[in-house]
């Protein structure tokens, strides 16, 4: 969890939850949500370009819109290991952390292109690629704790002493 290395897919500003997972796909079974990741973006064949362990890099207000947890679940199932964006909508950000998908706020979208490889140190807030580096505030202790448990459910189980 501390350091994630992967190939980047670059996206723009205000990527909303209807783009990440359209309304018509919300009743799909949990297991097949990955097939609908980013289905609401014209001309983007996401499941073809997303490799296991890939990193999304986006602009401002990523995940704005609905509270649908199917959105980050679809991205995670499609292979996304981390999302780095200039900013996140609140509910999306919390949903991602709650399902164990790390998100990291840093404004690097203009410096990268799809296919670049980056390394993100979540604990120290350091992002490096091709000899470049960028510093951003590291994840809060609370968020890191949830991610270390693998999400909110295992954390709640531990806190309630459920074996």
């Amino acid at each position, binding site marked *: 969890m501390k350091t994630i290395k992967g190939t980047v897919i670059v996206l723009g500003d*205000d990527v*909303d939850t*209807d*783009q990440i997972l*359209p*309304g*018509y796909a*919300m*009743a*799909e*079974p*949990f297991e097949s949500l990955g097939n609908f990741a980013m289905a*609401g*973006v*014209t001309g983007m064949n996401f499941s073809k370009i997303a490799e296991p362990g890939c990193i999304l890099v986006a602009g*401002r*207000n990523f995940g*704005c*819109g*609905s*509270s*649908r*947890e*199917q959105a*980050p*679940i679809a991205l995670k199932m499609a292979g996304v290991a981390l999302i780095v964006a200039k*900013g*996140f*909508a*609140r*509910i999306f950000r*919390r*949903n991602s952390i*709650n*399902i164990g998908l790390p998100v990291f706020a840093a404004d690097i979208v203009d410096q990268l292109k799809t296919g670049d490889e980056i390394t993100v140190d979540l604990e120290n807030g350091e992002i490096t690629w091709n000899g470049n580096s960028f510093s951003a505030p590291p994840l809060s202790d*609370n968020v890191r704790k949830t991610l270390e448990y693998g*999400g*909110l*459910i295992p954390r*709640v*189980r531990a806190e*309630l002493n*459920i074996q």
Partner: protein
Amino acid sequence: MNRIEKYLAKAANLEEVTHGQDITCQVSYVAAHDVTAPIAIKMFREIGVKQVFDPERVVLIVDHIYPAATEKARDGVWLMDDFAKEFGIKLYHRGQGVIHQLMYEKHRANPGELVVIADSHTCTCGGYGAIGIGVGSTEMAAAMATGRLDLEVPEVVQIHLTGELPANVFGKDLILYLGGIFGTDYLVDKGLILTGPGIENFSVAERMTVCNMGTEIGSMITLFGSTAREPDVAETREVDLSSLIPQIARPFSPANVVPVREVEGTPITQVVVGSCTNGRLNDMEQVVKAFKGRHVHPEVNTFVVPASVEILDQMEANGWCKIIRDAGATVLNPGCGSCFGAHEGLASARDVVVATTNRNFPGRMGSLKANIYLASPATAAASALTGKITVPRGEGAE
């Protein structure tokens, strides 16, 4: 402390809180609907507790896809039905209405109490003074198990309202106007409180409309305060309501807002009045005032979707459904309708929609290319009559 801090301090059983502080709050109600509940139920079962924190305080509501448009949607409802019976909690199904309206009608939290619903428009509760926190399914599942929610105390932006609202301007126009000022992310992780003598222009229903779209401008908590200014806020903006004119959000963002007159005359093909934003009786009244004795444009599909059975009952008692039907429009069953693009009036690439709903993202109501404009029921009804985006002229005078 400002009002949000006071309420959060009370919910967290603390004397005092300040912005940036991480706290754990006791919640008053926890709820989910047919899109978010199935995953929440799965997550709740993974936690492995034997009961919900309080069966009287957990509510499940089928509003998004009723009647089921697909077998999969129906399977989700069965999952909710089984869960509700097993844990002894209340399930509203068979078209009772939209979650945020039913929570107001049937399970109304007191002012200052925390309501946690797995839906982004939970902020609607701010219209009646409760703190509505929209969450995802996993967080809802955790709250359903523990009766608690972790959050950080937000910085607060105050909107101080003065002046008298013109007759053709409504709560929807105010929140769209604020969207135009703030954009979609200025208020992320912040609270928004509306204060000032101007709040008296707005009924509780209108206040619910304003708060409903707080999430569209990123806000974490949206709340109506009192006529007095709030202390300890990060920022205050003044709005003179008497200078406000009807507003509309153009494709493809709820914050892409201009005065309606700037796009007046744009031909349209569909009108939707309803949703948790604008499906209440006062919204229906605007439609009826415009439609009475008139007919919608022959090229426009017009759907009117009451937010609850209680509202529909009242519409029928008032003879309003007949007026709407006689105008050539269709009254649909209470629920979310076509707002989120799963059923009941999807738009194709050729459609231009004026909706009173809350989002106009690409593909929100069907085709990625369908153009959706967001406006008040008065603007939507006036536009349905002319077949073009039209500035409402005030009571029944379109």
